[in-house]
């Protein structure tokens, strides 16, 4: 089995349109949550979200191309461009065949579908846009990355709600580790700010009217976000041989299913996934110094996640730091795990742990070291990034710093 290096990063999110802006906001504890700007929220019970501000598709896509891509797929391509340029990958015909693309998406292009339904049901028109299907299919983010770069290797999309990107990255990691691919572009993208989608989230009564305050006693739910985040993975030896900058090692991946309730999280499922990620990476619990939590800011998640972390790490749970960067980039559903993987990798690279923003009140039921509001300079050896989805599907990634 080969070691796998993370050699390229690309992000577009509420925290800016590139990796530098993303990291600057995270290290400063600056939240991108603001009043929703992209649509009229008069008919909604909530008005805040984490949107990509000042996004102009024409700056990224020529006229015709922009029409082909739903916003969620645009974000994927933009992030992939940055990640590949960052990694300095030079494609040969052989490498194009041996490169895998594995992406996550939860709602995918449902905004395009929603627009079609407005034509049909509200305006009583007889036809919807002919590109509704190619724009809305969840795998469009993977397809457009492959077309953009002429990558002909295995490409597919994983849709496991809020765990989508972690499942995708985990799959890509195993493919590179096992020799099924020599390079992988992996992550997720999402753009859920469409009235029909927001109404469905509203009905679930998990969205905060305020902001996202993970682990804070006065937390009042999640805040939806959007964006795209991609990582370039390659075999450690190959990365060293070509003199690539290695951000971190992706070392382990664990998955599990709660087999319990369709929306209520469990403790046992996340415990099993975290243990599996550690085992898969050959990492002792004591080597983990930081966990980028799923940390949605709902009453249910933050308590069960705290319980799960305590069960896995026992006494060591009080010696590791935990934060939820969703407090800053929002909950970008199928892109969430990818945004958080990048936050985790950068934390390992810079020796700086991003905080949990918007934290105002300790909760005895979430009594971990949750890095309230300020980043902490500490070089940790290993880190986990948790994603726990509706449907009880859990995916945990384990990373190792290069310096250790």
């Amino acid at each position, binding site marked *: 089995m080969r070691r796998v290096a993370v050699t390229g990063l690309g992000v577009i999110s509420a925290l800016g349109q590139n990796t530098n802006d993303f990291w600057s906001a995270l290290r400063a504890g600056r939240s991108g949550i603001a009043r929703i700007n992209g649509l009229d929220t008069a008919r909604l019970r909530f008005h805040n979200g984490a949107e990509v501000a000042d996004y102009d598709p024409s700056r990224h896509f020529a006229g015709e191309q922009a029409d082909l891509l739903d916003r969620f797929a645009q974000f994927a391509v933009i992030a992939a461009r940055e990640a590949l340029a960052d990694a300095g990958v030079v494609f040969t015909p052989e490498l194009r065949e041996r490169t895998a693309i594995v992406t996550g998406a939860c709602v995918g292009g449902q905004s395009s579908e929603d627009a079609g339904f407005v034509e049909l049901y509200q305006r009583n028109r007889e036809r919807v846009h002919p590109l509704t299907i190619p724009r809305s299919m969840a795998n469009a983010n993977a397809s457009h990355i492959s077309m953009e770069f002429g990558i002909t290797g295995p490409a597919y999309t994983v849709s496991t709600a809020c765990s989508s990107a972690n499942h995708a990255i985990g799959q890509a990691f195993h493919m590179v580790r096992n020799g099924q691919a020599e390079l992988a572009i992996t992550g997720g993208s999402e753009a859920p700010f469409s009235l029909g989608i927001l109404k469905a989230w509203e009905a679930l*009564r998990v*969205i905060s*009217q305020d902001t996202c305050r993970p682990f804070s006693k006065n937390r*009042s739910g999640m805040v939806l976000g959007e964006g795209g985040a991609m990582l370039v993975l390659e075999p450690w030896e190959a990365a060293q041989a070509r003199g690539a900058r290695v951000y971190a090692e992706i070392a382990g991946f664990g998955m599990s299913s709660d087999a319990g*309730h369709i*929306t*209520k999280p469990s403790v046992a499922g996340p415990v099993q996934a975290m243990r599996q990620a550690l085992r898969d990476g050959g990492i002792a619990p004591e080597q983990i110094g930081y966990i980028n939590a799923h940390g949605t800011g709902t009453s249910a998640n933050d308590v069960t996640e705290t319980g799960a972390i305590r069960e896995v790490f026992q006494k060591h749970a009080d010696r590791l730091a935990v934060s939820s960067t969703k407090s800053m980039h929002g909950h970008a559903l199928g892109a969430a795990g990818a945004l958080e993987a990048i936050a985790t990798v950068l934390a390992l690279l810079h020796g700086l742990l991003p905080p949990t923003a918007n934290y105002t009140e300790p909760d005895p039921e979430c009594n971990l070291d949750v890095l309230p509001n300020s980043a902490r300079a500490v070089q940790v050896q290993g880190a986990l990034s948790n994603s726990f989805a509706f449907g009880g599907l859990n995916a945990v990634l384990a990373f190792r710093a290069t310096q250790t």
Partner: protein
Amino acid sequence: MPDQVTEKVLAVIAEIKRLPKDSVSLDSSFQALGIDSLDGMNILFELENEFDINIPDEQARSIQSVREMVEGVKKLLASTPASTPSAE
């Protein structure tokens, strides 16, 4: 004899949980009726439609029993000016 609002709330709960009507009373706890968070949201959704009211999330979170649910609905009905009951 329960009033009309109470009767409707009890009927909605019985329907959502597929329970015999007489097994749901004002004194039933959600736990005893097997109502979890998702059932709770389904019931609130039906009540909003039935009474044409808007139950805010914060109020919804504090409801833990049938009695609290009935009282909450009544309070909202009282504060909604001249709302017309939905057609049956």
